């Protein structure tokens, strides 16, 4: 047992130790305040230097604790989930590496260090999405995720360049103190915040760079839970929250941020309505929920965004792991239309999944209700239109969640596979997460009775109305290509780039450059061919030529006015 699972156990223990550290740091921050741990002087050029340290303050320790906590649970879950995979050790290696980079991301005391973690988690995401490397389409999905993230990262790094040029530093402390002297609406500031936000759209799967996230579901389910739901994709939220001092001074950019968030929330929710793959539904749901958080940040409300990020981490990880348990039980099947009636076979999974689903749809008293409520309130202050749009998205959320639950757990069994409940090593983390997803909201028990009542009535209505359609009849309304941004990107960006590559390769390189260079060669060799006839081989003729040449040369020199 231990021999078989040594890698998972060691990896989980490491993360658990990290979790304990994070608790200690959390405790210390809340008793004595923020502190820093210097690491190294990274590099110094022309008066600009980057020193790298770890910054523990309430924001970073919150992230630290959440990441390591969720990561620990998912590591434990993975021991069961990956039990039969031959490359378990490599899997846990990548997973640990991911946690390392994520910790670097949230704890760094400067933007460049954050960028290291930012790209590092992207790398681990690549490795884990393409973990089953025998399947070429998984590899393509991994590559897509990495490249699209890199587009965002380019924005991030350009933002860092402007920041370097404006403030001469990327240390949080220096930038945030210098920014106070910058006048509001300063163009550099707008540029910095906007470019950093481009980075966020990549990493946190916002419009227009969100299409990699659904494809990223190619990875093992624990990866989707950890990286593509709970932690990595929230890095963007963390980054905007961290640099809120900058964003506050650039209200135009905040408006953009909010509307991008709202639009993403809408698009994600609409697409999720028509998916057939359980993980794709959850992925688009993640996109949509990230849109909520970004919208909240755009409305200037950092706390609700972070709050929703934490509760989302719990309930979405729970949902993914629950889905993973279902997939595991169904022997790898991901199509919801081939499931059905699983609540009898997998009662424990069903109950925790239901908790997660209710939390996601924002049902009181689960955590999702409180955090979403906080976001809606904050957005209401900023823009009523955005507020009503998000209310609509919440309704859509409830619909697709209900559809998913009904299709998977209710109705009749639609395939021959006999599902079985997962082992304890997988269900215990599920239960822990379910408790967290249910109870995390009480951290912030600001109740508004209208909201509470309204939500309960609305949800009851939705679940009641969708029950016959999906639980009883299981209407097949799948449309996996629904609102496919991928097709558009492929037609407008990928294909033209590849085509121009081939064009340049065959036309510019071969036809123009080679022919120009070759043309010179032809010219010279043609000249040589014509001069060759002078090379008659007759000595007498050569003597004549020598004489004539010397004569011409000498006369030329005599006449030439030197």
């Amino acid at each position: 047992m231990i021999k078989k699972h040594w890698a998972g156990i060691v990896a989980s223990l490491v993360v658990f130790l990290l979790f304990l550290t994070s608790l200690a740091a959390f405790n210390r921050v809340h008793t004595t305040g923020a502190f820093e741990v210097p690491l190294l002087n990274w590099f110094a050029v022309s008066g600009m230097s980057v020193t790298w340290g770890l910054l523990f303050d309430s924001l970073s320790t919150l992230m630290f604790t959440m990441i390591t906590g969720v990561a620990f649970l998912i590591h434990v879950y993975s021991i069961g989930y990956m039990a039969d995979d031959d490359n378990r050790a490599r899997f846990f290696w990548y997973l640990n590496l991911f946690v390392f980079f994520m910790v670097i991301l949230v704890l760094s005391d400067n933007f460049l260090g954050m960028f290291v973690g930012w790209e590092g988690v992207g790398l681990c995401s690549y490795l884990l999405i393409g973990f089953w490397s025998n399947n070429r389409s998984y590899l393509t999905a991994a590559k897509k995720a990495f490249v699209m993230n890199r587009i965002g990262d380019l924005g991030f790094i350009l933002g860092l360049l402007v920041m370097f040029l404006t403030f001469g530093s990327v240390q949080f402390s220096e930038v945030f103190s210098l920014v106070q002297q910058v006048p509001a609406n300063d163009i550099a500031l707008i540029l910095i915040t906007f470019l950093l936000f481009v980075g966020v759209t990549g990493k946190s799967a916002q419009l227009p760079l969100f299409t990699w996230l659904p494809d990223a579901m190619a990875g093992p389910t624990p990866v989707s839970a950890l990286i593509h739901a709970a932690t990595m994709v929230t890095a963007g939220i963390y980054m905007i929250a961290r640099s809120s001092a900058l964003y506050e001074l650039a209200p135009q950019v905040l408006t953009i941020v909010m509307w991008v968030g709202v639009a993403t929330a809408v698009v994600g929710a609409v697409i999720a309505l028509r998916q057939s793959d359980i993980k794709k539904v959850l992925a688009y749901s993640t996109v949509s929920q990230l849109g909520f958080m970004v919208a909240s940040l755009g409305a200037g409300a950092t706390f609700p965004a972070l709050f929703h990020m934490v509760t989302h981490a719990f309930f979405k990880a729970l949902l993914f792991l629950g889905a993973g348990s279902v997939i595991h039980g169904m022997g790898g099947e991901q199509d919801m239309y081939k499931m059905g009636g699983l609540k009898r076979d997998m009662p424990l999974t069903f109950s925790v999944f239901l908790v997660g689903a209710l939390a996601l749809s924002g049902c009181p008293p689960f955590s999702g209700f409180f955090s979403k409520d906080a976001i809606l309130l904050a957005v209401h202050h900023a823009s009523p239109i955005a507020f009503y749009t998000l209310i609509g998205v919440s309704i859509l959320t409830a619909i697709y969640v209900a559809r998913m639950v009904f299709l998977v757990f209710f109705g009749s069994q639609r395939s021959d596979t006999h599902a079985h409940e997962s082992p304890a090593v997988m269900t215990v983390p599920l239960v822990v997460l379910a408790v967290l997803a249910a109870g995390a909201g009480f951290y912030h028990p600001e109740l508004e009775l209208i909201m509470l009542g309204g939500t309960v009535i609305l949800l009851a209505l939705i679940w009641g109305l969708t029950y016959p359609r999906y639980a009883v009849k299981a209407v097949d309304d799948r449309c996996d290509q629904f609102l496919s941004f991928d097709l558009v990107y492929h037609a407008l960006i990928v294909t033209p780039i590849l085509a121009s590559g081939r064009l340049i390769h065959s036309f510019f390189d071969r036809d123009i450059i080679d022919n120009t260079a070759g043309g010179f060669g032809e010219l010279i060799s043609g000249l040589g061919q014509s001069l060759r006839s002078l090379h008659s081989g007759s000595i007498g003729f050569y003597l004549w030529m020598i004489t004539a040449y010397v004569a011409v040369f000498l006369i030329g020199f005599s006449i030439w006015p030197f």
Partner: protein
Amino acid sequence: MALLVLISLPLLGALGVLVFKSRLFAVAVSTIIAFFTATIVMRPDLLMMFPSISLPSLALTPLSSILIILTSLMVLAIIMTSEDSFGFIALLLGIQAALFGVFCARTGLLFYIFWEMTLIPAFFMIVGWGSGDKLKIAIRFLLYNLVGSFALLAVFIYLFLNTHSFAFSDWMTMVFPQSHQLWLLVGLMIAFGIKLPLVPFHRWQPDTYECLPRSGTMLFSGLLSKLGIYGILVVMVPLVPHAMLIHRSLILTIISIGVIYASVVALAETGFKRVVATVSIAHGSMLAAGVFSLTPIGIQGGIVQIVAHSLGVTALFLCEPRVRSRFYLGILFLSVLGSIGLPLTVGFIGEFLILLGLSQVSLIYALVCGVSIVLGAWVMLTLYQNVQSSSDTPIRLTDDEETVLIALVSAIFILGIFPSVVLL
């Protein structure tokens, strides 16, 4: 005097290799050279045992110190992993001597002689050990490079006629008229642009890299292409700073287009070596862009990128398709990461500084060159995945290759975390 010894050591080594015909001897010689180089650079005071003949025409600058250490280590790596015959290794050592000469030369005459001295062994390497249509490729290589050399020679003759001296110090103190500076700039651009190579002078490079045996490709990409950027740094920037400054936006525009051009072409290329070669053009152009930004940070970035690209591309070529063991795939992936400039690799420091330098000129250039980073990631990952899912080749990595690869990849990461070694 010590530098004279430095330059002649590889030549003696080449003779020895031809006489003894022993691989161990070749490795020993290049190890000795590497130690000697390190001694010269780290502890110049230890060299007092040499007769103190002062040779003003040879000297070490901080930049050339970095480059000769890089050269000696790379040649050691190449010889350790080379499967080619002793004639090849002798030529390799000959090129090493010429490279040392170029990096130490402080006069135009010596610079030019050593510059040309690299071409002859390189030509014979292609002709003797290449594959495919090697004679044609060798001649094309030689013609392209000779055009560059001719431009260089013309510039040097002009400089000699105007200063009556070959010493760099005399050249650099001279101020030339604006119109002449422009011509000097054009000549030097051709000379160094072909070597680097920059688009549109790049067409000799992919074929040559593909044709050469692996060690040759490592040498050409890792070391010989660095001559171009070294020339830009040592000759062009001090000589015609005003003309460069005046025409900076034009040059940067051309180079930026070249960066994108090469990256896009790399997407259309097939075959391991050709893809890496084409990406290498993009990297080289970007490196030049950093230098041509004419900002201290950009130039710094260029220098870091010399080391980064040299290590990265050598590791990549060493990783040409093999039996897909876990070690092979892992090390190939790490080399790919080094090549796409992931943070914590030295390539990241270089690219970041280059972009910073460019953004001091204009953010547009940084943006355009940055796009090539995205495209580069695309190309390199496609390449990696093609290797990952291709059919097996029967050749395994040998122990020596594994050692060298581990050393190269660790250097990439160690320098990425502690880059101050390669920052001047």
